[in-house]
């Protein structure tokens, strides 16, 4: 039973007992590059750096680390895109807010 659990655990870590790796994770480089081309906030660079680590870590047999870096690459590419939208929304909320405030104040005077 213990042996079974151990094997199961290793499979979850993406290696099987013979040490032969399962599928290599997608390094998400495509999203990283697209993020640097299309987005203003340079999180895409962080994403590229993570994406480059995936293949070399996988080649070194550090499978769990490779999977983590692939996830990190994806996460930063998403944040690169989302942060643009967040900043724009905050900016327009502020502009609109101040405009409204100014209009109210001038009405009061």
């Amino acid at each position, binding site marked *: 039973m213990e042996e079974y659990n151990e094997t199961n655990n290793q499979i979850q870590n993406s290696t099987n007992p013979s040490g032969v790796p399962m599928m290599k994770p997608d390094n998400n480089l495509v999203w990283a590059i697209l993020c640097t*081309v299309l987005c*203003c*906030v340079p999180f895409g660079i962080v994403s590229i750096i993570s994406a480059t680590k995936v293949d070399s870590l996988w080649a070194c047999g550090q499978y769990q680390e490779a999977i983590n870096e692939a996830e990190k690459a994806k996460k930063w590419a998403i944040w690169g895109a989302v942060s643009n939208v967040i*900043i724009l929304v905050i900016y327009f909320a502020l502009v609109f807010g101040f405009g409204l405030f100014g209009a109210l104040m001038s009405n009061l005077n």
Partner: protein
Amino acid sequence: MLSVLKKHTMAILFPAILVVAGIVYYVLDPTVENSWAPKCPMKLLTGFDCPSCGVQRAFHCVLHGNISEAIHYNLFLVISIPLAFAVILASWYNFNHVFDRLERFVCNRYVLIAYIVLYFLWWILRNVMGI
């Protein structure tokens, strides 16, 4: 069948996105003041150009066949667009390993380091020299 579809989602979606974006930016003119095109948050907040500023204007110009004006809006696209297309081919269209060599090239550490260095160099130069 579903797994095959899921595996090739982006291979199918990408041309569709490109066509829709092409129609939108053919009609929408971001080169004029007060257009509906979204503004760069970096430019709004700091007044500095970001490395991607001018991409929408450049896309509009390319769609109207005006390549030289497109390059004028963002010179870095000369490097970033070919790289982006290479990565897209290597990750979404690598059927039967036809783009394996291309994949090795774009995933090469030194190619990506060069890209990152050029990115920051472009960012500084365009704000200092106004290109």
